[in-house]
Each structure stands twice: as structure tokens, then as C-alpha cells.
């Protein structure tokens, strides 16, 4: 069998073609958003929002609404609850995030366990790239387009918000609104991605591509190109691997992303890090 055959053969199946389109679209949207998330320091927030949408998906299934509607509702609910718990001033923000998202995720798992369903709702938890239906793909394409257009149009404002919110305020922009926009796009993106890789692994696609790109360039405009390219390559490689090795599709994609990040990190370690990046929050390491 030739290499071309190896590459083409899987796509004799419609489900594989759909999986390919899905992973390419999801990879691009998540990677572009991840560039801002890693710079604002919202990795934990990405984890939170993507887990918190689970009960929304189950409830949407119950009433026959599109998954995206329920997921988006719970994504925003999670963000609101986190803000409310934090603003009581009784717990720190990371604790507020941890409490809210695990509670909502647990609520989702409880609902999954009691709702009798034809489709396996566990697929929402762990993802089922190979089982994306035509309707779901349409949903993914529409939401992805909305998120991408918003990100591209407001990319300069979002970058300024991430870099220097004080200056943003000083020239009459509204940092709080830009933060809210980023959160809203995060919630929508979580919905786009969860059907591909599942609630548990969405956060990987929301962090790893941006982190990898940040190792490869010192210009944000280039990060915005490198992150989606790397992410798409990993997505496609992961999909092939899962086809030929018969492994879990979403997990294979994420594993590929993680391996590529590790390789890039090893290669780039020789370059002097920027001042400030050498500081380690861990009690071991450089001793700085």
C-alpha cells in the first residue's frame, strides 16, 4: 500500500471526512483563541468554562434543543457564578473557579447518569470525533465562523486588553467589556470543541497551541498564524493515528498536541529565555 493510499483510504468513510473537517475547524478556532488565553493567564478559566457546560448539554438533550444553546447558557452561568463567589471576598478567585466548575461538572455527570438516552452522553464527556453528525457539524461550522470573525475583527483591542488594560482605559476603551467579550467567545468555543474532543480535553486545545506558538515567536501577530497551523497539523496527525492504531480520537489529538509542545520546548530551551520567564513559581528549579 502506497503512502497516498494510506492517507486517502480513511476518507472513503463519510464519518472520517466529517471528523477531518471537524478537527480542522475546531483546531483553528481553539488555537486562535488560545493565543489570548495563555497571555491573559486564563488557562484555569478555560478549564472551568469547558467543564461547566456539561449540565447544559444534558438539559438541551432532554428538551430537544441544540447542544450549543444549553452549553452556552451554562458557560455564561459559570462565569457569572465565579464572579459572584469571588466578589463575596470570602475566597480567592482560583478557589471560586475550582468550586464552581467542579460543582457544575458533577451536576452534569449526575444528570448523565439519570437521563435515559439513545445517544451516549458519555461522548460529550470524552468526545467522539468519529461520531459527529451532519447537524452537529453545521452547528460547529456556524459557531466557529462567529467566533473567528469576532476574534479577527477585535484582535487588536483584545491584545491591548491582554497587555495593558490601564492604557486601554486611558484611551477610552472599556477593559471590562473586552474581558466579557473574551469570556463569551471562550464559552462559544468550548461548545464548538466539546463535540470533537469532549468536555474533559477541550482545555488542552484552548491552551497548548497558544503556549507552543509563544515558544516559537516573540511577535503576537505571528503567534496568531503559528498556533492554528500547528494545531491543525496535530489534529490531522492525531486523527490518522487514531484511525490506524484504533485509539480514542479526541485523546489522540490532544496527545499529539502535548508531544509537539514538549518537543518544541526541548528545542527552544537553548535560546535564552526572556527576562522574567526564568522565574519559576515552583519550589524547585532555577532557585530564582
Amino acid at each position, binding site marked *: 500500500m502506497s503512502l497516498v493510499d494510506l492517507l486517502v483510504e480513511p476518507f472513503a468513510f463519510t464519518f472520517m471526512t466529517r471528523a477531518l473537517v471537524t478537527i480542522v475547524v475546531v483546531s483553528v478556532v481553539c488555537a486562535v483563541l488560545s493565543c489570548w488565553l495563555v*497571555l491573559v493567564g486564563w488557562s484555569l478559566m478555560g478549564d472551568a468554562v469547558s467543564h461547566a457546560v456539561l449540565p447544559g448539554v444534558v438539559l438541551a438533550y432532554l428538551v430537544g434543543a441544540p447542544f450549543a444553546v444549553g452549553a452556552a447558557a451554562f458557560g455564561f452561568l459559570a462565569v457569572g457564578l465565579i464572579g459572584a463567589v469571588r466578589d463575596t471576598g470570602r475566597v480567592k478567585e482560583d478557589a471560586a473557579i475550582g468550586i464552581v466548575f467542579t460543582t457544575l461538572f458533577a451536576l452534569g455527570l449526575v444528570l448523565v447518569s439519570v437521563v435515559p438516552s439513545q445517544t451516549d452522553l458519555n461522548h460529550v464527556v470524552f468526545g467522539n470525533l468519529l461520531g459527529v453528525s451532519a447537524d452537529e457539524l453545521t452547528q460547529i461550522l456556524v459557531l466557529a465562523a462567529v467566533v473567528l470573525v469576532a476574534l479577527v*475583527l*477585535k*484582535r*487588536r*483591542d483584545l*491584545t*491591548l486588553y*491582554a*497587555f*495593558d488594560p*490601564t*492604557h486601554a*482605559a*486611558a*484611551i*477610552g*476603551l472599556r477593559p471590562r467589556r473586552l474581558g466579557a467579550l473574551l469570556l463569551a467567545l471562550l464559552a462559544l468555543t468550548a461548545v464548538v470543541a466539546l463535540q470533537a474532543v469532549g468536555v474533559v480535553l477541550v482545555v488542552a486545545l484552548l491552551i497548548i497551541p497558544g503556549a507552543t506558538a*509563544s515558544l516559537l*515567536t*516573540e*511577535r*503576537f*501577530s*505571528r*503567534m496568531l498564524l503559528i498556533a492554528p497551523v500547528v494545531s491543525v497539523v496535530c489534529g490531522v496527525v492525531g486523527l490518522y493515528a487514531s484511525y490506524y492504531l484504533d485509539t480514542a480520537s479526541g485523546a489522540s489529538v490532544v496527545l499529539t498536541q502535548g508531544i509537539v509542545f514538549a518537543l518544541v520546548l526541548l528545542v527552544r530551551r537553548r535560546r535564552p529565555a*526572556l*527576562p*522574567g*520567564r526564568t522565574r519559576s513559581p515552583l519550589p524547585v528549579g532555577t532557585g530564582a
Partner: protein
Amino acid sequence: MTAIDVRDVAVSYGPVLALDGVSVSVEPGRVCALVGMNGSGKSTLFKAVMGAVPLDRGTVTVHGESPARARRRGLVGYVPQSEAVDWTFPLAVRDVVMHGRYVHQGFTRRPRAVDREAVDAALAQVELTDLADRQIGRLSGGQRKRAFVARALAQDASVLLLDEPFAGVDKPTETALTELLRRRAAAGATVLVSTHDLHALPGLADEAVLLMRRVLLHGPTRDVLRPENLALAFGLDAGVAS
């Protein structure tokens, strides 16, 4: 018209009173130094001028306008303390200076020829043209400060607020910044500098405000910097303010 007019302003953070009945007015073309210890309210007064903190009482106007309107018109240029900046952020000097142009740009902030020219001119004024494409973390302390001054210049702000501009800066940069700010003032800009570092002030500031939650003294720099006056703001160790 008065460039910065702060009248009887009080600001508190919870139970902590940060400013208590502060009145300061600065005319266009003047360089005014805010002098006081850490926690004396310098940063809060900056925030009040930018409209970034709610006032318990009093009013602030910038060129006769509310801080919110002044911000939207790009009148206020802010140069942050070095500690307040994420120097690992993947932006080049030129990108940061372009941020000063955002207030003059449209919905997507796409740079036009006039914006690029303003950025180039600002970079030339602070002598960073050769380093324009360098990542901001790869600059020296003095160069970093000049990059942010260039951002305020590109913005064409008529009121410049500089927070501790001489901290961590070498002597040549300090001299160059002083000359640059004097030139901007001569061209009609108003400059407000907050500092607890006094040695550079006589060459820079026309007037100084001694701040300790309230205005202790506001007058010509030389008068304000007399040891007996500094003792009011810094305690008995006047002159070795820190």
C-alpha cells in the same frame, strides 16, 4: 483653560482614605511633579485624573472636560511604572507604540499611513528607531521607559501622566527624557510626573505638589524641595526620601 483641574477630591478604598480633599490645578505648558511617599496617594491621584477610580466627592476636569470624555478624545497619555508591565509579552517596540494610535483609529484599529508616520516620528524622538522591531523584554531599563513615552507621543496626548519615570533608568536616559518632556511642555503639553526620587526634579519640573493624602504644599519646585518642607511629607529624614 486649565489643563488639569482637581477640586476637593476624596477617594477611599473601603475604609482606607487615599485622598482627602485634594485640590490641584495645572496650566498647559507646565511640568508638575507629584512628590510623596509610597501610599501618599500619587497613584490614586493619577487614577482620578484618568477617571479610573470613583470619587467620594469633588470634581476632576481635563481641558474642561470630564475624564471620560478626555479619555475618548485621547487627551490623556499614561506612562506606567515598569513593574506594571508584562515584559515577556510577545510585542515589539513598534507594536506598543502603535497602541497609542488606537484612540484615533476605527473599529478594527487597522493602521493607516498617518498612524505609521506618527509611530515612526515618536520612535525617532525617543531614539528607538533602530530597536523598533525588538521584543520589549529585550530592551534595557531606559529603553523600556522610552518605548512607553513614545506610545504617549504617538497618541499625541496633550496631558502626559508619568508614574515613576526615572526608576531603574540610566543617567543618559534620564537626561534625554527630561529634555524631551521639557520640549513637549514648551510645545504646549501638560506633564504630570509622580515620583519619590527627588534629585531629577529641579531640572524637570516647573512646580511640585507635596502629597500625603492631602496637598501639603504646591509651589515652585525649588521651594517645595526645601528640607523643612520635605520633612513634612517624608518625616524627619528629609532628603533621603525612599
